[in-house]
């Protein structure tokens, strides 16, 4: 490889192919990729730290906001930890309700992914279609919980809201519509030539590499890893719900697309099963305000992969430590491997194919130089000062502007 011909192109922090800030510096040799440098940390929100100063109940709502799309997965996973420490047994109806919302969320997340993936390869019609159909499941979620995202469907010890017979009818009707549309997408995915040309043999990652890097979720299942937390470590009502774990052996982006549409079909079956078999009874048990000292770890199959939460309590009404490991964290590590030897045109779709969620993943607390050395920890005020000085050094001074703005506000 002639290093003189290498051009470095920044994809991010702001770029049309990214929905959230992250920086992929792509080294290009013509149209071929010669290297990829991954940089995160534009989105750190300090949620884990904030969780330590809030009560367990408040934390449900905070943790819910870790991710806008997996906004049922994260609180469920957190609550499972708390219930485990407190020794609470969730009633059967509550468990079924959790699974129901979980599967509806998976449907909406996968349909969203389908649209984003189509957009990345310039297939805007599929984006418009799949996002139109996503509205069907969004309406159902809004009907059941009052919100399109951030459902607040959980409480410690069970579910927050019950469903009625009318709800059941509407859900079944919506699932029928969605199933029919999804069949059409499967048809498109298996027949449309340009789509297959763009997805096949792109972002290849072998089963061995998947195991080596700990890749999770549909990304791993598309490389033939037969693993799903819902089946292998069942939570909520998944022990009682029959379903198939969808795997694929393409190992590329096409395989990931097939796994996701396959999971959509499975989710519809599961939703039907839940609606038909949901037991009667209470939806929640009462939880104590103070959780006894202890620690717990829990796993949850989020739409993007295995979500892991860790909670340590100290007997008060606030947790001592909450740790969130979002699935993007492990999947992102495999992206440079996937992109080895691919084209520039494959970068957006390969990044999108792991269904990344950068703000869920960001845990940046260290500031280091670009070469990776010289790491130091900065406080908020130091960071702010650093920013102001940096801009001033580069000839941009906001002091006057700030004064003027302050004057106008007065």
């Amino acid at each position: 490889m002639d290093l003189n011909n290498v051009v470095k192109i920044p994809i991010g922090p702001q770029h049309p192919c990214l929905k959230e800030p992250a920086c992929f510096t792509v080294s290009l040799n013509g149209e071929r990729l010669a290297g990829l440098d991954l940089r995160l940390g534009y989105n750190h929100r300090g949620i884990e730290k904030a969780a330590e100063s809030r009560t367990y109940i408040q934390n449900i709502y905070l943790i819910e906001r870790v991710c806008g799309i997996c906004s049922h997965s994260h609180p469920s996973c957190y609550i499972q930890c708390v219930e485990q420490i407190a020794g609470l047994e969730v009633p059967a109806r509550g468990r079924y309700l959790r699974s129901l919302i979980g599967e509806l969320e998976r449907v909406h997340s996968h349909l969203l992914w389908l649209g984003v993936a189509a957009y990345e390869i310039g297939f805007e019609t599929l984006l418009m279609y799949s996002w139109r159909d996503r509205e069907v499941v969004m309406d159902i979620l809004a009907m059941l919980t009052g919100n399109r995202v951030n459902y607040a469907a959980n409480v410690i010890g069970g579910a927050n809201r019950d469903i009625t017979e009318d709800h059941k009818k509407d859900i079944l009707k919506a699932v029928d519509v969605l199933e029919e549309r999804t069949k059409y997408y499967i048809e498109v995915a298996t027949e449309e030539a340009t789509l297959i040309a763009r997805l096949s043999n792109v972002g290849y990652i072998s089963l061995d590499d998947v195991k080596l890097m700990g890749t999770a979720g549909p990304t791993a299942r598309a490389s033939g890893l037969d693993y799903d937390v819902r089946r292998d470590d069942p939570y909520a009502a998944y022990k009682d719900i029959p379903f198939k774990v969808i795997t694929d052996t393409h190992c590329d982006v096409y395989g990931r697309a097939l796994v996701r549409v396959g999971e959509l079909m499975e989710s519809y079956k599961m939703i039907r099963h839940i609606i038909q078999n949901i037991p009667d009874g209470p939806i929640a048990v009462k939880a104590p305000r103070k959780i006894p000292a202890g620690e717990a770890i829990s796993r949850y199959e989020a739409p993007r992969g295995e979500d892991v939460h860790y909670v340590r309590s100290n007997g008060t009404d606030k947790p001592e430590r909450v740790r969130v490991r979002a699935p993007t964290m492990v999947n992102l590590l495999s992206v440079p491997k996937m992109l080895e030897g691919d084209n520039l045109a494959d970068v957006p779709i390969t990044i999108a194919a792991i269904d990344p969620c950068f703000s869920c993943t960001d845990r940046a607390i260290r500031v280091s130089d670009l070469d990776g050395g010289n790491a130091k920890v900065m406080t908020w005020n130091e960071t702010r000062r650093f920013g102001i000085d940096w801009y001033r050094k580069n000839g941009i001074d906001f002091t006057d502007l700030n004064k003027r703005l302050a004057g106008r506000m007065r």
Partner: protein
Amino acid sequence: MSVSLFEMIVFPGFIFLGVMGMLFEYLDRIVYARLQNRKGPPWFQPFADFIKMGSKEDIIPREADSGMFVLSPLLAVTAVVVSAFYIPMWGGKALFSFFGDAVVVIYLLTIPTVAYFFAGWYSTSLYSTVGAVRTLTQLFAYEVPLFLVILAPGILANTWSLSGMAEFYSQNPLLCVTNVVGFMVAIVALQGKLERTPFDIPEAKTEIVGGTFTEYSGRLLAFLKLTHSVKTVVVAALVSAVFLPFGVEIGGVLGFAIFIVKIAVIVCILSAFKAALARIRIEQMVDFCWRYVAPAAIFQLLISMVLGALTGCGV
């Protein structure tokens, strides 16, 4: 052979083509939107976009070559408008014609692509540079097939004048059927020329932001967009003159209406392709063009030559 200022600026020059370009841009957008289950823009949207962009500030990057940066869009729009003078639209003949004007038109229609390359290259931004290189790579893939199929009908008509071709085929409409392969090749090549999905590789926004036009803003961007719209009409007019010359000798309002319908059909075909396909990679595009489109173009050439020999018309 002289051209009056009125012809150059108003009709059938810049303003006429500009208005036509924007109206067909609207048609393209609404058809695309309806195919995608969207409502689509109101009819004046392209005009509103043009006026709004025209009223914005022009920003020329410090690193860019400001001369070429400004000249490229003007070069592009001029070349397209001039080429329109040689294309028969309705009422028989084009504004100008001479033996071999088909070659001149194809040559003139290549200039905008080269101008896009200059625009991207002299912007010196990374995304623009990649876009510019892609523009040229793509040019080499679609240009030869397009050239071959535009000239193929000329063999039967025994002329390389577009007006002559249109006249010949409107007198012998049945012979048009022999050019079906050429028409299909031309439609594929047009998508490359107009940089539309699946060949919108030079401005693939998810990969290289705005591609060639990343650094453009304000009036210059408005002109680039206008060039694009006008180019759509002119190229569609070229294809309709060569492959669909029905009623080209009819003048007046009826002739104009027939012309509009023909352009609209071609634009709708292009919109349908845009809606139905995903963007492919540059190497897939080059591969496709040389493996399938170029042989098809040569096949069309052979058909024309054999027919010419059999019927005795042509060279």
